[in-house]
């Protein structure tokens, strides 16, 4: 028999529980009482035009498909991996998931994402090139539909470029890496105040690895058993040495920007301090919005090595949760969402390139204005980022590669020490993931 205070406590707790439970909506998903299916689509679109395009497409779908309603959920790039992991573990993941291909490996291998091979319609399968599908293929399965991607380009101050008289590169004839180094020297003031180039290398690893493909750098190699290991070849040294020499030998690249993000370099770029800035293609939106009145800028292809203007990318993807009871319907929505006209709309909204060949033909993506044509011409040279399917890559990147590259670029260590750290320390990290 409970004493009075204890009885009061138990009653209070019970009431509070009832109250709290009553306030919640349970968060269930599936079929309504009238048999209508509701799919949750978590989108990471964030720019206004892109969010509007996403919402309009969802509305169009809902108007045409009253029996399969799609609920738009505005997700966030910030902490998306942890948020999705928690949702998967808790059995509350969205049915349709927007992410990037370099974030999918753990989810794919962990069994959280549906293998799309049997679900993909022929139209979508044939519209996206094989190199696109390779970015979302893990083991035997395909775990996402790549739909938006961006190459890294050089954004140049057109006035400085014209006054210097240097050859302007085109996607058909990009600068070679030695030529780029020479031109950056020519565009530098040599006074330590103006520079030919500003490398924003807050995240030096993806930039170095993805651009390194053009010079034949792979860094990650797989043996016959499929085990990945790091090997540092001559091709891997091309981009790294170019950046290092520009900063430390030629003084044609600003050392101050090495720790910056892309946006941080824009004031210096607009102010004429830097003639060129290597940035992701979508940064054009910020440049178009923030550039001073009369400032002229031009999109140039990134330098290329022996392999041509090839570059590694991690496209944005749409995946389906393995737990979703309505995979077929989810794929039908993805197929609608990524119709060529819609994919082009989404690409324009995010200032990126569509992966689909039909969408890429959209005239709006072929215009010279804002460098769209340059980007579109580079699309066929975009291949999967070299490291994205390597298990243990995130740890290798954070603990080994990022500090090693940062120290090398700033001149704190030499090339031999960089190689030693990337390979020896790096392989120790990878080995733990491949036992």
């Amino acid at each position, binding site marked *: 028999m409970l004493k009075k205070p204890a009885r009061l406590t138990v009653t209070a707790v019970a009431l509070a529980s009832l109250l709290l439970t009553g306030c919640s909506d349970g968060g269930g998903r599936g079929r309504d009482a009238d048999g209508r299916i509701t799919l949750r689509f978590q989108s990471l679109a964030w720019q206004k035009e892109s969010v509007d395009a996403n919402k309009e497409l969802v509305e169009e779908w809902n108007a045409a498909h009253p029996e399969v309603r799609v609920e738009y959920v*505005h997700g966030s*790039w910030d902490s998306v991996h942890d948020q999705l992991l928690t949702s998967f573990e*808790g059995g509350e993941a969205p049915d349709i998931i927007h992410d990037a291909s370099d974030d999918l490996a753990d989810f794919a291998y962990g069994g959280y994402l549906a293998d799309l091979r049997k679900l993909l319609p022929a139209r979508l399968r044939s519209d996206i090139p094989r190199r696109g599908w390779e970015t979302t293929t893990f083991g035997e399965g395909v775990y996402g539909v790549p739909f938006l991607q961006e190459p890294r380009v050089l954004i140049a101050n057109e006035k400085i470029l014209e006054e210097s008289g240097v050859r302007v590169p085109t996607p058909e004839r990009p600068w070679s890496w030695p030529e780029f180094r020479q031109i950056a020297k020519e565009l530098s003031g040599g006074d330590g105040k103006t520079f030919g180039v500003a490398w924003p290398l807050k995240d030096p690893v993806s930039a170095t690895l993805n651009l390194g493909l053009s010079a034949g750098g792979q860094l990650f190699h797989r043996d016959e058993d499929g085990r990945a290991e790091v090997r540092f070849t001559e091709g891997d040294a091309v981009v790294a040495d170019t950046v290092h020499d520009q900063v430390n030998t030629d003084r044609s690249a600003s050392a101050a920007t090495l720790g910056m993000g892309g*946006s941080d370099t824009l004031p210096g770029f607009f102010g*004429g301090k830097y003639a060129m800035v290597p940035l992701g293609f979508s940064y054009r939106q910020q440049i178009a919005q923030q550039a001073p009145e009369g400032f002229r800028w031009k999109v140039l292809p990134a330098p290329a090595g022996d392999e041509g203007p090839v570059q590694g990318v991690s496209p944005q993807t749409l995946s389906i949760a393995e737990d979703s009871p309505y995979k077929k319907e989810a794929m039908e929505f993805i197929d609608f969402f990524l119709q060529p006209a819609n994919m082009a709309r989404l690409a324009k909204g995010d200032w990126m390139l569509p992966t689909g060949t039909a969408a890429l033909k959209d005239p709006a993506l072929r215009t010279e204005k804002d460098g769209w044509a340059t980007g579109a011409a580079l699309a066929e040279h975009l291949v999967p980022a070299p490291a994205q399917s390597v298990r243990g890559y995130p740890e290798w990147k954070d603990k080994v590669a990022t500090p090693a590259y940062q120290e090398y670029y700033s001149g704190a260590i030499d090339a031999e020490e960089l190689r030693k750290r990337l390979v020896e320390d790096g392989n120790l990290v990878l080995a733990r993931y491949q036992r």
Partner: protein
Amino acid sequence: MRTRRSTRAGQYLALVCYLVFLAFPFLWLVSTAFKPPRELGSLHPTWIPRDPTLGNFRQAFDEQPLLEAALNSLLAALSAALIAVVIATPMAYVMARHRTKLSAAATGWVVVSQAFPFVLVIIPLFLILKNLHLVNSLPGLITVYVVWSLPFALWMLVGYVRAVPRELEEAAAVDGASRLRTLVSVIAPLLAPGVVATALFAFITAWNEFFFALVLLKTPEKQTLPVVLTHFLGAEGVADLGPLAAAAFLATLPSLVVFALIQKRITGGMTAGAVKG
């Protein structure tokens, strides 16, 4: 005399430096919030916008449900602060006045629990809340905030209770006051600044919290301000800086207002008038 003056000047100088250090990010945020996009990209930024605009605020409100998110944050933070203080105050009194091995262990556990990273607890927490049908609900989030801020609130309040002289309670007992009367009329007024400070801590912790809110709330109409603020951020840290600064500036105001309103309560004489003449 000269030494004392120079010491005082040094203290003021240190204080000014500290204030500048604290105020700089906020003032820069305010400045950015009123700048048009072309000024944001200027190589020579100015404190006072050359061409001030409210466009960033308009855009922020147009693009995101800031008002609803602010109300959600306010509800969650106020509830969490209130509940945490209501639960923690009597617990703190008991732990401070009746020191046992158990209370010492509890205090140790409180300190250790502060070191737990969010990621460590989020999945079990999510599963528990899911079973209670509290995922995607403000009551669920409030529950988490209370649990999360309770240890530190308790730790803070224990210190405040210990600062109240035990002799006051003994004196009240000698004067014939009952235990309850002593607590209400003698201890509570002296503890008030501590309770307010603790409530403020719990409020600000909940108001600023991002990760739990991100993971636990799915529907847009339930999301809190920190989560909505991230909608101005793209991949790899790219940001729509103007609207983000405008929204972030608005998000800091409630904390400032709350603090301004109750700071006197916090700094008010802790034991003023406590000792009988």
